């Protein structure tokens, strides 16, 4: 064992930090202070800048537009992006779909779909969940029936994040109605402008619209948009989820939240001086911080684990579970740092048309959106594999229960 960080890694971090400081436009960075639901135009501008540097998808293979960075370098890159409050990138395209197309897509699919993702030109949504297929995803019913060189897609997806401004959706669909549930599923790329695709916004408890229902009615999808083999969609979906096993800890986001909490609690006055110095609050913050450090070192262990490393891989399964809990707790503590105004509904961003007309008297940039974020983070332990299901996986696959 050696817990020292190599000299080259420090140098790498400085290089990334300097680049971001110079390249991130000031207005985007300012909006990033309320880093929750980034604006699409901000993300796109930023992705073009990153793409020019060759850094929009460091985790992709180098020959497809990625880099040959080590897992630790990629982690540091993400960490620096969060530190600088850069917009949150198109996760669906870059983190979920991208690696699948890199690994299983045809050269034609790679040539067609990867460059627009890298450049932020096209936006993707993830069409997995359905009204009756949530935790039990394999029970999904949206069907795709072969008709010549097209699939005819019928069914409904739901909880589809950002589908209201997505150009494309990658969907799990049932192409075989008789096979065992997992075996009948295929992975299909669908252009959202195809006739028969409709979407309906879902408003969530943070006062925003990021979720949507997506309906498919006799939607004709060229057979060329099937990824990999028909009936193998489930294994690609599993590959996709495994690929985000350290990012699902959202530890860099939570570290950023802690900075935000510290900032807000330093400004917040109490009869005994700034809130940050009061015993109850300081203790809560210190506890959160210690837990985030433990989480980050767990991430580091996973980043350094080799394929067959059982210990490293079992740690991976706790990252989402604990990371999502800390993520919500951090947002709740940030709201608490606002005192009375932590219960106020607040606008999310300058462009949001859901912006309430009547605003609480909050002047600090960092405070905007904090309470809404606290509400939205309630979902962290639900999406991406709910905590109850995560615990079952740990009990079964790690403990062998």
């Amino acid at each position, binding site marked *: 064992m050696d817990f020292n960080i190599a000299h080259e890694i420090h140098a790498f971090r400085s290089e990334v930090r300097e680049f971001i400081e110079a390249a991130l436009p000031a207005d985007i960075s300012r909006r990033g202070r309320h880093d929750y639901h980034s604006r699409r135009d901000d993300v796109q501008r930023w992705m073009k800048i990153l793409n020019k540097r060759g850094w929009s998808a460091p985790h992709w293979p180098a020959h497809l537009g990625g880099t040959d960075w080590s897992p630790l370098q990629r982690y540091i890159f993400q960490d620096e992006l969060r530190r600088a409050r850069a917009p949150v990138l198109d996760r669906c395209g870059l983190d979920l779909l991208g690696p699948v197309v890199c690994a299983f897509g045809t050269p034609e699919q790679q040539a067609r779909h990867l460059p627009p993702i890298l450049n932020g030109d096209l936006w993707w949504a993830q069409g997995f969940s359905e009204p009756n297929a949530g935790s039990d995803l394999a029970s999904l019913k949206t069907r795709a029936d072969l008709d010549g060189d097209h699939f005819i897609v019928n069914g409904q997806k739901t909880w589809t994040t950002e589908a209201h401004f997505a150009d494309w959706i990658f969907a799990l669909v049932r192409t075989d109605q008789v096979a065992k549930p997992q075996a009948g599923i295929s992975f299909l790329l669908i252009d959202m402008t195809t006739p028969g695709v409709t979407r309906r916004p879902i408003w969530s408890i943070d006062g925003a619209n990021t979720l949507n229902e997506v309906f498919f009615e006799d939607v004709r999808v060229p057979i060329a948009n099937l990824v990999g083999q028909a009936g193998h969609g489930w294994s690609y979906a599993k590959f996709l989820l495994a690929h985000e096993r350290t990012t699902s800890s959202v530890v860099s986001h939570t570290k950023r939240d802690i900075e935000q909490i510290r900032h807000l609690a330093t400004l917040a006055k109490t009869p005994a001086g700034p809130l940050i110095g009061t015993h109850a609050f300081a203790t809560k913050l210190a506890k959160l911080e210690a837990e985030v450090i433990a989480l980050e070192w767990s991430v580091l262990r996973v980043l350094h684990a080799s394929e067959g490393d059982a210990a490293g891989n079992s740690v991976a399964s706790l990252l989402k579970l604990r990371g999502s809990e800390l993520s919500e707790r951090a947002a709740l503590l940030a709201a608490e740092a606002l005192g009375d105004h932590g219960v106020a509904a607040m606008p999310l961003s300058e462009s949001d048309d859901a912006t309430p007309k009547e605003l609480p008297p909050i002047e600090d940039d960092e405070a905007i959106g904090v309470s*809404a974020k606290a509400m939205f983070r309630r979902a962290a332990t639900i999406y991406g594999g*709910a905590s*109850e299901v995560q615990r079952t996986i740990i009990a079964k696959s790690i403990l062998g229960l």
Partner: protein
Amino acid sequence: MDFTLTAEQQALADSVHRFYEREYSFESRKRRLASADGFSRDLWRAIADLGWIGAALSEEDGGFGGGPIGNALIMEGFGRALVLEPFLSTAILSLQTLAHAPCSAVRDRLLEDIVAGKVLVALAHGETAANGDAEYVEAVAARRGAGWTLQGHKSLVLGSPSADVLLVTAKAEAGIGLFLVDPAAPNVRVQAYKTLDGCRVGDVWLDDVVAEEALARPGSGLAPVLRGLDHALVGVCAEAVGAMSAALTLTRDYVKLRRQFGAALSDFQAVQHRMADMLVELELSRSILYQGIAGLASPNEQRIRAISAMKAITSSAAMFVGRNAVQLHGAIGMTEDYAIGHYYRRLFVIAHLFGNESAHLDRIVRTPATFWPAVS
């Protein structure tokens, strides 16, 4: 001791139940929330006609002598249905503050008008820098002629956007006084906004505002406000009990219906255990609510500890039950169109109102323990 409701209390609880069953569908509530006031003035009059506004007041103050148990029964029912009318701000916080204020013609007339449902009153006491310390006031009062001028900023003033009258605390040399302020008077600014649960509240700025008369002169204004707050804390904890119990019922019904992996969610032991924990939190909150109501009649330190223990436990229970109710619903719990998310947001607001868990634990620490609150 007797934990069963008397015939009159049962009748009150039943009539509250009938009220929200009749008036509060999800859709009608949503419409009311979107209206200019964020509640219905017609319903407020109906509530006055039912005699509930003064339910807790003594008969000599024009009430019905139902005491804090009466208010708690009403608030529990209102919590179950997420009732929006300003009962907490006007009928409990303001009314109880006034009821504990020194007698005067102004006070007596105001009490009468409130009970009749004619005026809406908001207590402008809390300030951002107080951090849940109910005794902390920065706003200042200065003598001018026979009256006073007020200067200060009050935050999260419940009911202020619709109030006809503001009761304002401000500090002079002799201590904290309680003043009557017309929200439409010059130099008063009410900045209205919404809390996360959609209710309208406001921050109030007083910039050299003339107050003709003090309801309680400097030095005697804090005591009635603290009593008003004690009653409001009981009210809001009763509301939490109602909201938690409704959230628990909704969740129980949902997990019995929702199927995943070929079984009802309620078949999974993890879900059963979580719901059992939620029930435990709910029942402990109910117990400590009763303890808090009993504590209202206790001498100073004992009362403070009783009330703060109640709010600390209830705040934490409200968060636990609210968060897990959403959790067990899955994504649908996160939506505006589904009731449970509204319960969570109300419970979140309640958990932070009039001091959060930390603030009340801190208050317990600062209050000498001369008694064990429950059994003296």
